[in-house]
């Protein structure tokens, strides 16, 4: 049996399947709100194709669309509002 691969969302370990997006893995963990963006709106998965910019998160410090970003083991994913420090 292969070991379960995980990444980190807000410091919590979340399992994922190889080849899926950060957003898909978060959805699998029943995480649907990704915190507030710079304009104060709730971010969340919406269009799924990188067009709406509603699912922006920080991946290893870089702002990117959760729906386009392939997830990797050990990846550090945080909400935009928690990445300013």
């Amino acid at each position, binding site marked *: 049996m292969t070991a379960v691969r995980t990444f980190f969302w807000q410091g919590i370990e979340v399992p994922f*399947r190889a*080849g*899926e997006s950060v957003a*898909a893995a978060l959805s699998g963990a029943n995480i649907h709100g990704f915190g507030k963006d710079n304009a104060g709106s709730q971010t*969340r998965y919406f269009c*799924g194709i990188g067009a709406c*910019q509603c699912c922006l998160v920080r991946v290893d410090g870089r702002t990117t669309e959760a729906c386009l970003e*392939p997830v990797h083991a050990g990846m550090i994913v945080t909400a935009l509002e928690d990445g300013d420090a």
Partner: protein
Amino acid sequence: MREADIIVVGGGPAGVSAAVEAAKSGLSVVLCEQRPALGGAIHRQPAEGAAPVAALPSLARRWQSLSAKLSASRVEVRTRRAFVGIDSTGAVLIDDRAAGKVEVRRPRALILACGAVERVRPRPGWHLPGVAAAGGLQVMLKEGRVPEGRVLLAGSGPLLLALAAQMTAAGNPPVAVVEEGDPVSRPLAATRLLTHPFILPDMAVLMMPVLLRRFLWRRGTRLTEITQSADMLSARLRAPDGREERFEVDRIGLHDGLRANDFGLTADPPSGLVILRAGDLREVLGAHAAEADGAEAGREAAARLEGRPSCGSRSAMRRHRALQHRLSRIFAPAQGATVLRDCPDETVICRCEGRTIGHLKEQLAGPDAVSARELRLNGRFGMGACQGRFCSEWALSLMSELRRSAGVPASPPDFAETGVCRWPLRPVALSSLANAGIYDDTRTERHIEGISA
């Protein structure tokens, strides 16, 4: 590495068939796709270990056939590459998302095949977490994450039934599909679909779970409001007879049709570069049309670069256009066209900037006429990160609704009037722009040329 003769953007049926056809000429072709895998919306592939979603009968084995042709071709495939635009010198800018740098490319031809985006009309609560575009839920489903819990699908069009059928097959049918049209009340229009026999098996697959009553199909019904209470979403529906009904669900998928993903593209590109549009980006006609249209674009690009006359007429598109026209009549809203100004003032139109219907009314209330450009620059509608992809259509149509109700007849201004037709066509990291450059190995070639000169 040499510069490719032709760059194709978009790895769906239009882009792949364009690349395959163009490469037959012997010209060098690079195919760029923003995701890690090809397929596009229709042929999206499952993540490792996930069960694939069965294709509709008319599309069965189409992807296997296309990808076999691609493997046999000399097309170079580059994934995680997003098209950023064309600069004033005719350079094609491609964001290499994995490397975090923008590639500056100078092909002789560019074929754009970036598909369609969904239209999602603003409704109170559409911006809440747990509410997604129905196509967004379908992306997850195809990649192997079946939307869990109680799911409601609402809006209009065949995509809602397709997603409902796929969710049913995956073991979690939606609680209900809320369709604004009433296809059953238009038997004559439905009969005309018989002139397109290739989609009849698809329709049978879509209708089977409806006939088996695996989910409720509320026709002629409009979702008028979404509210959040504790962990649940509450959807309010209005039936044709005015009766109201509420559904408590975990997730909601909205869909009000598709539109070409041609945002920000200028009508008059810089000279010297052949630019062709293909598939849903050119005209939303579906996967079959996209594949044929892409092939046509690939042949045309090759012919133009080789100075041959391009003979393609794209006349096959007429049949697909007739089909789309019939489908849109069948799914026409039974309660008449929606009027945005009837939504409460606090309804969000532009999510990125948090701008509401009330904000728009305020901006238009002044004595001077407001232009589409001012709506964006002063009102911040369409000013945010999505660059107006999800709000401009609605902000502009509300503006003309309000003008009409004030006695000024006006059709909605064109998207181009907002003044956003320029690169970057999508957000790109400043660091990626700062790293922009020609390919390392091209630089090496130039360096070597410099030494030997």
